[in-house]
């Protein structure tokens, strides 16, 4: 298949359609507007449905309804819009419905800034709604990865009957890059994916069909559902994805995800040329988090970890600290509020730590 040049938001939308997504509902918010716009023209071509919701609240609930029929369904938004979806996401997680949503994150808190940021990390990974549910959260660092992760997200969602979040940012949404698109699922494959869920789907059943009940109603109380969900979350070690880049001899290890990690990688290539032994641990799944990659570092060799995030105060640092448990210092270099991470500031901070 040929490489094509595509904007991140549109590439995410096309990847979703190719994965068999046949329903999208969303509400305009920058910097992700190309996703609903693309879906509005693309979904009707494949017999799918696009609905412009009257709000993010309505949009996630349209997805909640559509996904209950077994149809692969998706929404997207950005930061404050994602906050409005929290209740619906919690309901989807409670009902154990497969669905995919994308956060093309911007500055915050509140309306923040329309420019790229990474200030939704704790919300995305720890509490995307009430009630203590968990999700697999994929954090791409270039457009190709955003495409591949979106495509895979629908399979994960179906496998677990759970929402999956793509945690992107305004850079990835709006940048144009050459990519390879995954194979488009045929109409027969899309139908088979839907039909496979018929035993629990909200489509109408004959009284004697004995529909497998979805929440609420599967259990006599809430606690048994919580216990069953917790069992699912414990199976996710196999789903951890991480890139460990030049860490074998590293004296300073950068911790970064998403666009910050990509900028950090660029800095590392310059640092290495100058003889600085700097590596990178890049969580590709920020939930489940690759704690082992940090815990297994050779702390006899590693002088310090440099946490690089587009969030002030830092957020992923809580997970890094949890893994490192005080075995080496953890410093930060940060930007926030829509200001993009500078390669120079990473170079400066990393050099200082190496020369310590």
């Amino acid at each position: 298949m040929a490489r094509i040049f595509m904007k991140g938001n549109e590439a995410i939308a096309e990847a979703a359609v190719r994965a068999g997504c046949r329903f999208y509902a969303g509400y305009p918010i920058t910097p992700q507007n190309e996703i609903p716009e693309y879906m509005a023209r693309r979904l009707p071509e494949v017999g799918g449905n696009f609905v412009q919701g009257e709000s993010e609240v309505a949009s996630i609930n349209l997805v909640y309804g559509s996904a209950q029929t077994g149809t692969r369904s998706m929404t997207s938004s950005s930061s404050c819009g994602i906050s409005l979806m929290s209740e619906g996401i919690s309901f989807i997680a409670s009902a154990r419905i497969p669905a995919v949503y994308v956060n093309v994150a911007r500055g915050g808190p509140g309306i923040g800034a329309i420019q790229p940021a990474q200030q939704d990390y704790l919300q995305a990974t720890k509490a995307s709604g009430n009630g203590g549910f968990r999700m697999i959260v994929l954090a791409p660092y270039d457009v190709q990865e955003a495409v591949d992760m979106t495509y895979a997200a629908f399979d994960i969602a179906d496998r677990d009957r759970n929402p999956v979040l793509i945690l992107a940012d305004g850079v990835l949404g709006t940048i144009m890059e050459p990519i390879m698109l995954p194979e488009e699922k045929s109409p027969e494959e899309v139908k088979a994916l839907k039909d496979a869920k018929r035993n629990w789907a909200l489509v109408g059943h004959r009284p004697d069909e004995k529909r497998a009940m979805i929440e609420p109603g599967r259990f006599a109380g809430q606690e048994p559902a919580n216990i069953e969900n917790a069992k699912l979350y414990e199976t996710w070690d196999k789903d951890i994805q991480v890139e460990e880049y030049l860490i074998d001899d590293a004296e300073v290890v950068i911790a970064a995800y998403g666009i910050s990690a990509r900028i950090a990688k660029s800095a590392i290539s310059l640092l290495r040329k100058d003889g600085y032994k700097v590596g990178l641990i890049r969580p590709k799944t920020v939930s489940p988090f690759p704690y082992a990659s940090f815990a297994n570092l050779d702390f006899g060799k590693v002088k310090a970890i440099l946490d690089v995030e587009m969030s002030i105060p830092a957020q992923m640092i809580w997970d890094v600290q949890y893994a490192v448990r005080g075995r080496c210092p953890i410093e930060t270099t940060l930007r926030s509020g829509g200001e993009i991470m500078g390669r120079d500031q990473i170079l400066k901070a990393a050099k200082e730590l190496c020369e310590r």
Partner: protein
Amino acid sequence: MEQLVYKRTSLIRPDTSSGFCPGCMHSTVCKLIGEVIEDLHIEDKVAVVFGVGCNGLAMNYLTFDNTTSPHGRACAVANGVKKSSPETIVFTYQGDGDLGSIGLGETVAAANRGDNISVIFVNNGIYGMTGGQMAPTTLIGMKATTAPQGRKAELHGYPMHMCELLDSLTAPVYLERVSCNTAANVIKTRKAMKKAFQNQIDGKGFSMVEIVTTCPTNWGYSTLDALTFLEEEMFKEYPLGVIRDKTEGGK
């Protein structure tokens, strides 16, 4: 020769009892829903989206596919179901707080788009499940736990008329207000519900049946006095009848 003239709807579980309070009309409404579904022979393709409130108790004994929406979002959830499974006959079952307060946006937007869904709206002028707080439909002067001196227009505004509000939109196809206080009105309610479902089957668009009912528990009346209040006060504010019927290309 014996002839069966009436039987309990098979869509209510025989092994459970109603969780509704004595004198509450939700029981009647649920029974009618079951009967109408049987009349239309859509038992195997019907799905209900419950709102949050007393209506949700029905999930314990209606036998067909159901789900619960976040409070107020039933119309959005139902439209999502309908879009992705057009052969499913989907309806919402909502109270006045769910449909007219927290879910006002979703209700109006669904009606305005003309979503091909049916809405069963139970209006008893009060929040029942949470214990008698003021609803958007609470009458002027009517006491509620959050309006202990009674609803005052200058403080709380006026009761909302959802049928009339939706009647200001172009898309809705059928809006009727009914009740279940007499045998005659129960029959009218049954007919109205059947029409709302038939409209969806025929692909005509958004239909809503508002059923004005009692809440003896939270109104603080006996079941009989509640009926009197319904007939003398509620019907004055919420007159029964067809608000709009474009089913046959009419208004």
